[in-house]
């Protein structure tokens, strides 16, 4: 299998997942902007979205004010922002187009139709359809694409590269989301445990489709420590770091067996997976949640680099 083919598949699914996560970030920010009390200015509602998306600086460069419409436009629709939903869908589609023979016709059609629709949208149109409806649409297209891939692709190396892209991106996104909540959303210690805090943690849970799961698992009020545990360590929470790394470990192991080679990436993923498997949330908080999450984000970067090196994707 050509390295370029592997790279295209991997980036295709990474960008699709990125589009979905961006929709989730925007969705939660939008919800929070509706439920937060008046004293919270536009700025404190929308700045976190820029931070979690890693788009603080590029947005600053546009010289625009941090307010709902500007941020949504920048993160959802701006073609000059490489991380916008629009750009992510375009990149996913271009990667698929370059390697159409590696994916099934159904996958191509799902992705191509998504892009064609996205291309026709502007702010007025998504406002008319309802911002939440637009974010839901992006999530649905991502679900569809992932599901179609799961349901139609032969279980070969190509399939593994697609899945690796999905779970690495997801692990990254979950870590960033949690980190930003902890550090940016709490302006003062006095807010901790208050109503604002409740809504914010609740919104965070909703953004990763974990609100109901939290209720069912803990049967408790929303406590930051439990939210963190759910999203970091639980093995039954599909967007948790542990589950993502479980998948990554398995996939990279399978590739190792398939090609009979020793891959650094497989070992890195396994190391992180074992930390998550055997770690306790008390240990995480002892280290400091932010410090722990920073480590995860950095190790994701290293893992991404190792994947590129292992499979010859860097050229």
């Amino acid at each position, binding site marked *: *299998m*050509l*390295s*370029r083919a*592997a790279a295209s598949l991997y980036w295709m699914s990474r960008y699709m997942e990125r589009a979905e996560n961006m929709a989730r970030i925007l969705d939660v920010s939008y919800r929070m902007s509706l439920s937060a009390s008046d004293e919270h200015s536009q700025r404190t509602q929308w700045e976190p979205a820029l931070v979690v998306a890693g788009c603080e600086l590029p947005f600053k460069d546009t010289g625009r004010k941090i307010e709902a419409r500007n941020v949504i436009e920048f993160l959802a629709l701006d073609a000059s922002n490489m991380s916008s939903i629009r750009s992510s869908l375009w990149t996913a589609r271009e990667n698929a*187009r*370059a390697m*159409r*023979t590696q994916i099934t016709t159904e996958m191509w059609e799902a992705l191509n139709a998504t892009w064609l629709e996205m291309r026709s949208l502007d702010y007025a149109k998504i406002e008319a359809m309802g911002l939440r409806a637009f974010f839901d649409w992006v999530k649905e297209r991502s679900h569809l694409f992932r599901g179609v891939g799961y349901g139609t692709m032969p279980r070969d*190396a190509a399939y593994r590269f697609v899945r690796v892209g999905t779970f690495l991106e997801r692990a990254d996104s979950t870590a960033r989301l949690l980190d930003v909540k902890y550090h940016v959303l709490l302006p003062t210690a006095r807010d901790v445990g208050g109503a604002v805090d409740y809504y914010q943690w609740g919104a965070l849970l909703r953004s990763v489709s974990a609100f109901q799961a939290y209720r069912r698992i803990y049967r408790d009020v929303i406590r930051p420590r439990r939210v963190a545990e759910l999203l970091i360590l639980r093995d039954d929470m599909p967007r948790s770091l542990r589950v993502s790394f479980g998948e990554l470990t398995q996939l990279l192991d399978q*590739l190792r067996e398939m*090609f*009979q*080679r020793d891959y650094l990436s497989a070992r890195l993923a396994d190391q992180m997976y074992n930390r998550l498997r055997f770690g306790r949330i008390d240990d995480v908080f002892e280290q400091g949640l932010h410090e722990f999450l920073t480590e995860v984000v950095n190790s994701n970067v290293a893992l991404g680099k190792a994947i590129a090196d292992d*499979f*010859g994707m860097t*050229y």
Partner: protein
Amino acid sequence: MGGTPFDEMTAADGSVRAAYAGLAAWLKRIPADLIGRKRLEADLLFRRLGITFAVYGEGGDPERLIPFDVIPRIVTSAEWTSLSEGLVQRVQALNAFLYDVYHDMEIVRAGKIPEELVVGNAQYRPEMRGVDVPGRIYTHIAGIDVVRVAENQFYVLEDNVRTPSGVSYMLENREAMMRLFPELFAINRVQPVGHYPDELLKSLRSLPPASCADKDEPTVVVMTPGAYNSAYFEHVFLAEQMGVELVEGQDMFVENDIVYMRTVSGPKRVDTIYRRLDDAFLDPDAFNPESVLGVRGLFAAYRKGNVNLANAVGTGVADDKSVYTYVPDMVRFYLGEEPKLANVPTYSLRKADDLKYTLEHLPELVVKEVHGSGGYGMLVGPKSTKEEIEAFRKRIEAHPENYIAQPTLALSTCPTYVDEGIAPRHVDLRPYLLVGKEVKLVPGGLTRVALRKGSLVVNSSQGGGTKDTWVLES
């Protein structure tokens, strides 16, 4: 020449020619609207399979379907045998010519072809002088365009010995016809073409480079300029059908004059490259330094015999329209045989007499640019207005050596489904020759049809369509 064109289904006396007997009877039997319905079905089929052809510079969607005509063109086994003998002979002569012009230049020294036509040709690659290519084969895949003007008269219109395209349409057209009209295949015993990719792979594998480690199973790849190339669909198709990798320049690198492709399990040596891009883009170190599509060092590896290229570098010198007029001489010179397949009588406007004749007879002639392709830059005298003719005359007078002229051929016609029903339309034929240790061709080719009434231009970029081409079993 001229006059009433030869119709391949209906003879001058109104009787149906033998090859078409089964088809003609079937056409009479079926409900009137069946062909129209099948035509729509075919469009859907092709659209779904993504068989598109890119046409640039006309606005609109560049990815369009080549119109497919559902009525097959039929030739008998005997007609095919005699045609293919002429084609094989011709491609052998062309390969001998290519070897010669990059080695001893015997044909020039014998005074059979002017030196400047060879050495002064933009397609001549001095870098290839003295390079020994496997099996002395330069054009491994050739598409030779022929037209029919009478019962027993075929002419070669042009040779395509660089990177001829269109073979995927031959294969997909057959595939579509078998889905649409299974009953027609029961009436007619049609020789299969579906094994073309197998033959292509065998042919490519039969000429491994000198230093190839596994000569029984050399690693073959298809090299494409990329997804934006108009024939990309075909590159994907052929690689898939042969079960080999489809690579771009960026997927390969050269180390110690060995070519490798980058795979997820490390570098893998490449032995033979079926390349679908022009010489100029192959290697920025050897040719166009601006090329980002090629591979640095590829040409050096090739010269050293560490990789084979199909087709070879520098084949363009043999399919230039001004060299075309000398192909019958090549057959005589290299093979010591009389050509079995004739050229269209051609006036070479670099010659004063021919130029004079041509300028006096422009309204009757077809004038083509020597380096033109795709039906652009040509004048079809009888179909042109006075103004068009005068404008073209000025272009000829400015650079006569850039043009050749031919009489307007009465290309044969075949029944074709058009707006007014089934009517005769002009066709040509491109059979594909595979040259490895031996010369192979599958029975058939790509029939192109001019869908506009009376039009002689069959190019897909100019409103032409395609048909399935049937060679009957004896």
